[in-house]
């Protein structure tokens, strides 16, 4: 022990004090960036959330009006529940699809070349803007759209299905379409790191395919699932444009409340909503992180 200590500090004459200074210097660029672009804006939002607003201006104050209005309006709770509902349904769908796709890529495709090729194929839709990918659903799902006219000509339905567009269905569909890849990537990543011999061992021990999946692969994939979950939940909770377009402005989530407030120059009220949303998302993610040690993966 003493020997090691001796070698660690003495040979180059670097004192403990100096290493800590160097450490601080090395960390400072990142800290500075985070301070300016993350901490400062969020602090500003928190500060403004206590301010007051007239129709055309905001004035510094310390009042709880914004929170009082927000937390006593039953609309807030309904919208909040709606936001969570979208997040939950989208999470389940993206997880099922994402896991399946990643599983197929990781375990059924044998050659690395094909794995990479197929993986890139998954990312092709991301070469266009996500607004465009979303909006292209509208003519497809519309009353006289391709989906309805196909179903009618096939004789499956007599009347166009109204719920295909401008409904919760279309909102969730767009979310799933937009965000599944965020689930595929981290799950695929963790699956690729699973030692294949573990699966062989499971097979040797007499486990069926499903048993291997449930007792070996799923537990080992948990960190990937968690990272994907954080992506999807954070994206869906913070979204406003998908909900606006796909519900035909008829549904609301927290993002839309914020957007409406900003449009009407009610920045303090928008900030208060943003703070509440931020706290909720942080709590959610905090809870998720309790289940898995993500550091181990990174």
């Amino acid at each position, binding site marked *: 022990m003493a020997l090691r200590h001796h070698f660690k500090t003495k040979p180059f004459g670097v004192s403990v004090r100096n290493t800590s200074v160097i450490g601080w210097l090395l960390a400072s660029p990142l800290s500075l960036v985070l301070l300016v672009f993350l901490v400062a804006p969020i602090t500003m939002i928190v500060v403004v959330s206590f301010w007051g607003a007239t129709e*055309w201006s905001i004035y510094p104050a310390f009042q709880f009006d914004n929170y009082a209005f927000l937390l006593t309006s039953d609309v807030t709770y309904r919208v909040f529940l709606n936001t969570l509902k979208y997040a939950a349904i989208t999470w389940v769908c993206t997880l099922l699809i994402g896991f399946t796709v990643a599983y197929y890529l990781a375990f059924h495709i044998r050659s690395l070349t094909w794995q990479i090729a197929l993986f890139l194929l998954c990312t092709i839709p991301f070469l266009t803007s996500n607004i465009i990918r979303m909006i292209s659903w509208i003519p497809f799902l519309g009353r006289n759209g391709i989906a309805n006219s196909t179903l009618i000509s096939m004789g499956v339905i007599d009347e166009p299905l109204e719920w295909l567009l401008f409904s919760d269905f279309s909102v969730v569909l767009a979310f799933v379409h937009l965000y599944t890849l965020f689930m595929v990537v981290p799950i695929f990543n963790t699956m690729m790191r699973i030692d294949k011999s573990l699966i062989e061992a499971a097979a040797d021990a007499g486990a069926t395919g499903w048993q291997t999946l449930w007792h070996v692969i799923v537990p080992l994939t948990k960190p990937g699932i968690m990272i994907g979950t954080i992506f999807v939940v954070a994206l869906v909770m913070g979204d406003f444009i998908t909900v606006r377009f796909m519900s035909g402005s008829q549904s609301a989530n927290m993002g839309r409340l914020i957007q409406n407030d900003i449009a*009407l120059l009610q920045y303090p009220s928008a900030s208060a909503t943003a703070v509440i949303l931020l706290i909720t998302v942080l709590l959610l993610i905090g809870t998720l992180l309790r289940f898995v040690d993500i550091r181990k993966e990174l």
Partner: protein
Amino acid sequence: MTTISKVRYSRRSMLKAGGAAVAAAALPAPMVWGQETKNITLRQFGTGVSNLNEVAEKVKEDLGFTLEMTALDSDSVTQRAATQPDSFDIADIEYWICKKVWPTGNLQAMDTSKIANYDKIVGIFRDGKLTPESVIAQGTAPHTVGFTTGADGTTFVDEESGWMTLIPTIYNADTLGIRPDLIGRPINNWSELLNPEFKGKASILDISSIGIMDMAMVVESMGEYTYPDKGNMTKEEIDLTLGIFTEAKKNGQFRAFWKSFDESVNLMASGEVVIQSMWSPAITAVRSQGIPCVYQPLEEGYRSWGGGIGLSASLSGMELDAAYEYINWYLSGWVGGFLMRQGYYSAVPETSKNFMSEDEWGFWFEGKEAAGDITNPFGDVMEKAGAVRDGGSFYDRMGAVACWNAVMDENQYMVRKWNEFIAA
């Protein structure tokens, strides 16, 4: 400060010049001249309706300076005018937006003595009356927020004070748009918007200041309530109005709400919606796709709106002169004709007439049957020979205005309730 050379043209010298009519109309104001003008750039922003690149091109051609256009939706326009006064030189806004933005002091009053065609501006924007017999409609009528006390005025005055907040440029009378082919019967009242017959096929716009007025027209038409002033509701009246619409929404009356012009066109053209609040050029956009669409005149009258140009408070010197020149040019006819051929009205119709063919003037302004095909400024055929404008002549349409887009005293309350309606 740069001093700039101003040249006042005599009427005579201009008439000698070729293409004099254009310049002559803009003439009486002192003209900014010389090389300096070429370096002037004025930044204009406003709603999509009148922020057209064609206008900027023509400005460059006629006046020499550069006009940068930014088109935004009504809410963003309000936001920008109220919060970023240095981001623009010219604000092309609606009168109800002016009511909100003027108190911020971000705009400067304009001296009407520098406006050549001031005397020819239609009465709606001056004393509020289209014709001497007209009754002034409810809501934020343009003349009520069109004048201020003086160069530094912060409050509105009712009389023509010589200091204008906005120079009127464009206006129209709005009503419901319908798909006659999908409805198959006459529509005569605003109440039809909530008729269960159109369940899941109706729409209303999601811009609170405008939408609430459409709602009020519907509520009155249904016989539910008669407002003392639709443009200035009490909290109870706001609750009642949005209550009726929230119930309709929950019953599935609406297919969607729209916020931008294009959305309204798509909803109508695709058949998702057969009756909805709509703006005039959206109707023509649907019709130019070969799909029947009518801007249906209704018994209760129109909901009207007006827009104008306001100058940023920080505008001064050479740029300010250029801005006045631009305003004078704006009212001198070319833009008016350009806008009128899309179905809007110009603040000075008589100058616009010079830039329209007799048939165009007859169709758009006088409500006469079109003798030949009517094309828009971009060359697309809008109407075939024999067509008559929905609602008839200028005086028939603007004379039947029941209310103006408005900002109410209880606006903040209304906005919150509107948010609840959207979230319901």
